[in-house]
Structures are given as C-alpha cells and as structure tokens.
C-alpha cells in the first residue's frame, strides 16, 4: 500500500525540473561535518541539543566522517598548525559541499590577530556563509543553515562550484 505523496499520485506522472527536485532533497538533508576546535563547538552542541533541535531543519545527522557529509561547519579558531588538516578534511568531502564559518575566529581570526592564527578560513577553503559573534548564539547556527538552504535552492546540478578557488595552501 502506498503511503504519503505516492498515495495521492497513483499512477500519474509528475513533471518538474531536475534542479528543483535535487535541490529540494539536498536542502532538507544536509549532513554536517563539525570541524569543531574551540568555544564555538560548545555553542554548536547547544544548537544540536533539545532546546533548539537542529533536526527541525533536517540537519541532525552529524557525521564526523567527511566522506559522509556535505556541510562543513568550522566552529572555532584555525591555527596555522591546524590549516593543512582543515584543507585535507575539506578535500575528503564529496561534492556538492558547503562551508559555514562559525564565529569571529573562523571568519576573520577574531581577537587573535597574531603569529599563529589564520586570519579567516577563506584563506584556506571557500566559504559560503559566515556567522558573526564570539561565540555566536546557537540560533545563529540555525540562521546560517537556512541561508545555506536558500543558496542551495538557487543552484544547478550542471554547474561546478568553487573550481577556481585558490587558497594559501593550494
């Protein structure tokens, strides 16, 4: 017995654009890979906990394996020592993939303008959404998630993303 939408449709055919249906799927099943290094990772824990519940956006399947994830959340300071690892993890994620820079450190180095801190992860990998705050409130993570969803809506399966990006480690 058919359930859900197929019960309504029966044998009929539904016409749509490939982009629309693929993007619809991608939008509501983002699997985050949390690259949590510092304070922001604690606020991500809050975004995932019961009160805010990230699963309302379909993004609760937190994968710590980059090979099973399509949304990289960089939560925390990235030092020069950490940078090659960040880049390698990013490269291990299959396309299509999106990157969120959570907090001041990941976005711009934050208060740590010094010899050991990368001044924004966009020196290393391409970033789609930046979240401000030190650390941002967990609601801001959800806001960024919705921005990513909006962005996905406008994309096409035929276009490659960020192929021309060149970071300091490339």
């Amino acid at each position: 017995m058919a359930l859900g939408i197929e019960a309504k449709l029966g044998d009929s055919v539904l016409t749509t654009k490939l982009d629309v249906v693929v993007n619809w799927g991608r939008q509501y099943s983002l699997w985050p890979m949390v690259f949590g290094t510092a304070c922001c990772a604690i606020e991500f824990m809050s975004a995932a906990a019961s009160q805010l519940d990230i699963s309302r956006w379909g993004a609760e399947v937190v994968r710590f394996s980059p090979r099973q994830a399509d949304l990289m959340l960089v939560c925390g300071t990235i030092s020069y020592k950490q940078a090659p690892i960040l880049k390698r993890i990013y490269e291990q994620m299959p396309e299509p993939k999106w990157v969120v820079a959570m907090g001041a450190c990941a976005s711009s180095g934050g208060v740590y303008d010094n010899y050991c801190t990368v001044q924004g992860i966009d020196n290393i990998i391409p970033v789609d959404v930046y979240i401000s705050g030190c650390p941002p409130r967990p609601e801001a993570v959800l806001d960024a998630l919705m921005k990513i969803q909006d962005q996905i809506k406008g994309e096409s399966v035929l276009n490659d993303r960020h192929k021309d990006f060149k970071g300091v480690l490339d």
Partner: protein
Amino acid sequence: MNTALELMQAKFPKATCTPTIDSVTIDVQPEQLEKTLSGLKNDPELDFGLLLDVTAIDYLKYPQSKETRFYVVYTIRSWKKNMLVQVRTPVPDPESGIPTATHLWESANWGERETYDQYGIHFIGHPDLRRILNHWQFEGHPLRKDYDIYKGQVCYDSDPMEKEIKARLATKGIDELTMKDINTEIMFLNIGPSHPATHGAIRILTALDGETVIANVNEVGYLHRGFEKTAENRTYNQIIPLTDRLNYCSSLMNNVAFVKAVESWLGVEITERAKFMRVILSEFYRALDHLVCLAALFVDMGGLTNYWYLYNEKEAAYDLISRLCGARLTSSFTRVGGMYRDFYEGWEADLENQLRGIEKGVNDSLALVAKNRIVHDRSQGVCCLPGDRALAYGFTGPNLRASGVPFDLRKDNPYYNYDAFDFSVPVGTNGDIYDRIMVRFEEIFQSISIVRQAMKMIPKGPVNVADPHVCLPPKDQVYSNIEGLAGHFKLVFEGVRTPPGEWYDSFEAANGELGFHFVSDGSGQPYKCKVRPPCFYTMGGFHEMVEGEMIADTVINLSSINIIGGELDR
C-alpha cells in the same frame, strides 16, 4: 610565610631567597640549578613533589638591565606543607642552554619543551626537545621580544611523528628488527586532531598490537592562539575577555583566577561582597564544567541519554548566565578590584531554581550510571594512574584527587573565605576512569552546597573597591567632575598600573591549579603573562595512562581527564 623563607635560606645558603606574596623566589646560578632542584624535590623536610610550571623570561625590552637576557623559572609546590617556590636562573647562552629537570619531575618534559618552543632555550639532557605548541615548520621563537606578533608562518604539512612513535616503541623493547619480523603485527593508528573523540585539538598517535595500545605519543598545539603574546599587548582589564577563551566551559573561573592574581600583587583587598560573589559564581561554574565533561564522556561511552540530562541543565544555566552578564559562554564578569556589576534583582531565586535543575539532571544521570554494569566494566580498573605518578606529571584538580592525592587549593591554601564553608574534597582510590567520573559527580554536589552556603552568608555592600587607580569611578562622578573624568580616562587608556616585579598566583579551577605568572615593568600592560594551565600537564601524562590498555579506552580516558583545547594550547 616567614618560616618558609627561613627554611629555604637555611637549606640553600648560597642562593638568594626573597619572599613574593605567598611564595619564595630562589635565585641560583645555572651551575647550582640541578643541586637546588634535586634538593627541593628529595629533601623530606621540603618535599616539593609537584613541578607546576617551567617558563622563561626575555628581558630584552625590560627597563632595568639584568644579568642576562634570558632567565628560566621553575614553579614548584610542596602541597603537603603548603609551600611554593620559584627557582630562577639566568641563561647566559640560550643555544648551549641549562641542565634539564626531566629526571626529577616528568612534568618538566612538556614544560621545558614549551620553553624551548617559545623562547628558544635549550635544556641539556632533555630526552625529546622539540616544538610543542607551534608547528614543526615554524622558524624563530614567538615569545622572544624581538619576534613580531603579526608574523605568521604557514604550515604546509603535518608532522609525521614517525620518529617519535618509534622511539617510544623502542623504550617498550620493540625495535625496527622486531617490527620487520613476520610474526609481529604492529599497526599505527592516528586519531585526530579532527576526530570527535579528541575534541578537535589533539592528535593521538598509537602503535597497536591487535586492539591493545603498545606505545602512544601525542601532539598538541592545534589550538595555540597566542594568548600570552597577545596579553603582552593589552592592559590588564583588556585581557579578561581573552581569559574567557582559555577554558571556555568555565570561563568565569578564569576571569576570577586572572584578576585574583593581579590583585594579589597590587595588594588590593576586594570587598566582602565581591569575594562572596566570586565564590558563588566560581562554584556554580565548577558544577557546569563538570556537567559538560561528564556529558561528553558518556557520549563517547555510548550513553547518549546522559548527554541530554546533563547538557540540558548546562543549556538552561546559560540562560541564567546571560541574564547576569549578557553572554552565554564568555562571561568577562570580573574586573581588577571587583566585579563588572552586582547580581540583578531576583538572582537568588533564579539561581536556586537552576541549582535544583542541576541536581535533578545529575541525579537522573546517576540513576542510569551508578549501578550500570557497562559503565563499571568500561571504567573500573581502566587507565589507572597512581598518585605518585600523577604528581610527577604535574596533575592537579579532580584528576589528581581521583588518584588519591587530596590536594585542593581551596583547603590547602584557602582564599576568599573558603575556610568558612563546610565542604569536603572527594578523593578516589585507584586513579582509574571510574574514580575520575565519580570525583566529578561528587564535586558537583559539593559545589552546589558551597553556593547555597555562600548565598546565605553574602553581605550587602559595594562590589568594587573605591580606589580610582584600580576601579573605574562611578559614572555620576565621571560626568560631573574633572577628577572622575581624568581617572576614568587614565584607567581606560593606560590600564591598572602594577608595581615592577614578578609573581605567581594560583586558583583552584575546575580542572586543577590555574596559575598566572606575571612580569610587570610598572606599566598598565603585563611585560609577560604566562598561564599555568592544568590541562597541559595532564595531557603530558596521557601516554602512561593508556599504554597497555585497549584503543577504545583511550577515547573515554581522554574525556575523563577533561582536556579543553583553549586552555591546553592557549
């Protein structure tokens, strides 16, 4: 403290001993260093078993000229006799260096490595002198005064660490020849730094035989964000927000520890109300810190339900904290000479409500854990570290107490009226993971009890001292008279001026002894600000806890010692 000074002078007649706050500074020449240190460690009358920290000072830009540019300072504690000494020695030539102290205390290993990394001072006879916080392709030594703070250096590749793990295997009697033997199957397994179990900032490299860890070496420094160099360019009050980000699970305790250290040198006696506020908030944060530690530990063990019970209370506590100071995680609530502001109206009821919430969450979790066979089997007798080894590695706080050493600064060197509170210090017996879990559970209840006692005893009154050289004057004075305006202006621009000198002051933070070692040149900015992080030295003993254990146990062992990247790497 005069007795300690007399004792030191009697024991080391050749050295110059000077009292500093509640410690004694012993100045020795490099030739005398080894004898002095071993005397401190091995003399039963002194019994300095805990090497807290090793650091160096670069006097290149210091206003007064010194005998040599570099000095090395060892901070050592005799916890039973409540004595603290700092042994200072000049370093005539950093290239040739001074003798190591690694044969006396295991904690000197990482402490001296950090000194080498940051200041470029060699330690003769050190078994493994290489960089620890900065990456292996780094050139120069960032905490030297002639190193430009903005000069970043790109790291292109991670350190393979093959040499180190093989050297560690060799100490276990496994050399290259054994490894080439067809019947030996040694597998190298690297965990982290990007791995959920390592909390994002530690790299654990193991050599395995089956699932058993034969040898282990660890790499830290992935979250080194230059706290100490940045602090040298900030006024004392500007550093407070940076201390939030040391141990971000208990930010307010770092705030308190930092200002307490500055005030101790200034000789400022804060108001009674401020003292009680600091105790209440510190103990509240101690409970929160343990909540996060235990929540993460049970996730790693597979008991996700505990995470919800424990973490939801932490989340609710954030709401309370943001009502108090406007931020959830980064409190920045203290100021030199007092607090940012008083409790708001209705705080007492909100706090009591939250304390009940924490008790309920912890009791719910304990109901799942306390008689749980799986938890017992996975934690009892696993990754043990006896008390003497824990002391040698410089463990402090709950990890040391789990190993059976009842050292707690709140009892042994009380500050802020801690001797007036009725509380006990939970102590473990085996130093296994189970003891570390249970010590933390009990400390949550003890902290809650202290908070309740302090809320009953807290007097009314101002929260800031009325000294315009230390605390900002009230706003009505700033707006209405010139002294108030000038005082405000000077304090904001120049910072709180501290008399020239150097000192160390410590505080019992959630993870152990959190100390600050300052050098002041008399200005409003510290000439040097070194943190003594409890995590760093705990991590230095990690390999000894996990070697011989199963690989899966290393993961929960790491959670049980509560390593916080911000504090570990600063």
